[in-house]
């Protein structure tokens, strides 16, 4: 696995490969079940959880519906508070802004708070190309970065690694980029965390420039919020002289009070805690405390595209808690890499096509990476109806192929069905053919369903994809219309 999602195969291919990795499946099953149980416990503690979800969804939806106004308010508030505001249409522009600000301070390294937005725009790689080293300081991100690996979960990017693998990565790689891991390093999580603490402390103490994202941005006050656990976020937000925050435009909420339902929903949904260890909020520059130069990069990168989608717009309410990943039967089995994006799981399966469109094969495969069981909607703290958006995105994928010169087999089948169903004589003919098939199966078929009904087992050719794992019940010998004709609508008794 190399450090880029570019060129990843479509989901079915990547998923098949992931399913063959038994270590990965064991790590994932353990992790998703632990975190699921924790979440369920702290959510059950809140008497009015459903009302809280409605309030959270309402706050985010209201902000999105009037986004331009809130963005202008946010910009004005930030400037008033002493911050510099930049706007970036896409990943390239955002990365260029961060690189430019960093270079203006004559440094060749930045420390980073875990941030989905900066992962989305490939900031680390872009900075590296400019000769700037970006040090990830979240423990899981550090594991991914040192292992030259890819994140596979929104909250716990190294969820696919177990303790023995992490120990090996620390021993092998820490020395190359700073303070080496102690030689007697064990695979105890506490010992591994202590090694990360020692390794990163020298980087925190000398860093001049830090890069963060933000969980929320409050328009009326110009306040950014970062929610974290380890204290690496506080280190980055407090100690360096310069702070650059890359913030997706959908992170805006209107008022300070709007944070209430969200700060109650997020920790319980993501880490399964009543509250995460540290939440930092800051509004621009505070004289004598923390960074004295504060930059905020407001990032579009496909968000206006998603905003224009009447069904998909709700995906922008996402607060990146990752509860939908942990309950998803598909994610639990294939893990995050198969989705080919920093946003895996159910939310990734809708967010990626909404942000980037479905013109490439990989993104177009994502809306199908679901059984539509609906568990994701049930746990979503801001009530994103992921199954409905998945279905709508499947329609978008089909629509995008309408002009193809060589139609897909599915399109041909649908055309044939439309042709047969639109004329009663053609339908009668098709029913006769299906009745004949049923009779043949009953006579020669070897598969029977529970209850005795005959069925088709594995069929050859294109039908193998469906019948390989499912029995196809034998069609009835007589169609409803034949039965009606024969029995005069049941008045003749109807028995055969």
């Amino acid at each position, binding site marked *: 696995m190399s450090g880029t999602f570019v060129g990843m195969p479509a989901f079915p291919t990547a998923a098949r490969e992931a399913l063959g990795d038994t270590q990965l499946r064991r790590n994932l099953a*353990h992790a998703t079940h632990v975190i699921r149980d924790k979440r369920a416990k702290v959510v059950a503690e809140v008497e009015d959880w459903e009302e809280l979800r409605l309030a959270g969804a309402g706050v985010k939806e209201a902000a999105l519906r009037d986004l331009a106004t809130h963005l202008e308010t946010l910009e004005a508030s930030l400037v008033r508070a002493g911050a510099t505001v930049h706007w970036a*249409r896409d990943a390239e522009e955002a990365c260029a802004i961060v690189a430019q600000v960093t270079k203006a301070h004559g440094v060749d390294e930045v420390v980073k708070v875990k941030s989905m937005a900066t992962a989305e725009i490939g900031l680390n790689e872009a900075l590296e190309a400019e000769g700037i080293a970006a040090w990830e300081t979240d423990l899981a991100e550090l594991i991914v970065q040192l292992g030259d690996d890819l994140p596979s979960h929104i909250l716990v990017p190294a969820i696919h690694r177990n303790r023995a693998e992490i120990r090996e990565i620390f021993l092998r790689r820490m020395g190359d980029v700073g303070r080496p891991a102690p030689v007697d390093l064990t695979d105890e999580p506490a010992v591994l965390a202590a090694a990360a603490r020692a390794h990163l402390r020298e980087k925190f103490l000398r860093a001049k420039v830090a890069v963060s994202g933000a969980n929320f941005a409050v328009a009326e006050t110009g306040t950014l919020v970062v929610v974290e656990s380890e204290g690496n976020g506080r280190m980055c937000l407090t100690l360096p002289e310069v702070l650059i925050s890359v913030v997706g435009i959908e992170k805006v909420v209107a008022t300070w009070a709007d944070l209430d339902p969200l*700060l109650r929903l997020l920790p319980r949904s993501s880490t399964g805690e009543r509250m995460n*260890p540290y939440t930092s909020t*800051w509004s621009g520059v505070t004289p004598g*405390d923390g960074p004295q130069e504060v930059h905020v990069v407001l990032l579009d990168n496909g968000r206006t595209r998603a905003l224009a989608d*009447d069904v998909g717009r709700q995906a922008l309410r996402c607060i990146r808690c990752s509860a939908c990943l942990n309950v998803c039967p598909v994610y639990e089995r294939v893990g995050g890499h198969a989705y080919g994006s920093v946003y895996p799981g159910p939310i990734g399966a809708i967010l990626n096509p909404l942000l980037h469109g479905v013109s490439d094969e990989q993104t177009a495969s994502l809306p199908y990476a679901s059984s539509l069981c609906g568990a994701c909607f049930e746990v979503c703290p801001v009530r994103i109806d992921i199954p409905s958006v998945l279905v709508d995105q499947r329609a978008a994928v089909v629509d995008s192929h309408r002009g193809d010169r060589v139609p897909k087999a599915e399109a041909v089948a649908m055309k044939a069905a439309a042709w047969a169903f639109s004329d009663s004589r053609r339908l009668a003919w098709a029913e006769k053919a299906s009745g004949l098939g049923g009779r043949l199966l009953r006579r020669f078929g070897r598969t029977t369903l529970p209850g005795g009904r005959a069925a088709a087992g594995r069929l050859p050719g294109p039908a193998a994809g469906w019948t390989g794992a499912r029995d196809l019940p034998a069609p009835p010998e007589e169609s409803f219309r034949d039965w009606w004709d024969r029995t005069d609508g049941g008045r003749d008794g109807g028995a055969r």
Partner: protein
Amino acid sequence: MSARDDILRGVRQALAGVSPAVEVPAAPRVPDRGDLVALFVERVEDYRAVVTRCAPDEVDQVVRDVLGSARAVVPPDLGLDLPGAVVDDVFTATELDAYDAVVTRAAVGIAETGTVVLDHQPDQGRRAITLVPDLHVCVVDGGQVVADVPDAIALLDPARPLTWISGPSATSDIELDRVEGVHGPRTLHVVLVG
């Protein structure tokens, strides 16, 4: 056209014909939990933080006992008699790294979540001093404890930098196994007065 104008125009186009009016239901309130201070103590301890309750005239002694021989840095207006403690003189991060402990007051305590919020007034000091030393002793007055998150938000001033602290720093990044103490203070000791 500038990126700013482009994005704002794109947002307006995307929302053309979409009504900005959304009914936002009020967030529910937690039911009455009775003794808030007792709940606060219980929930702070749940994070494996240490809590000591004491009377107002015992605070100085309690904090001195917690510190023992630790080298402590304190904010300018802490208002406690702690011999040997050094008042923060805008120390650099590296200078702060030489201290074992920090003692501060707090702005608000939240009972429901066991959270202490600092708004970094002179009795709490700059953000850096509560971050670099390994032991954070936080003195919270019983009267500062509120029921839940919305009560705290109503009391806090967003213009100030805020740090919400719920237990010692922690990570669950290795096999979802919770480990206390990564980069922030590995020990949080809350002294609850009253």
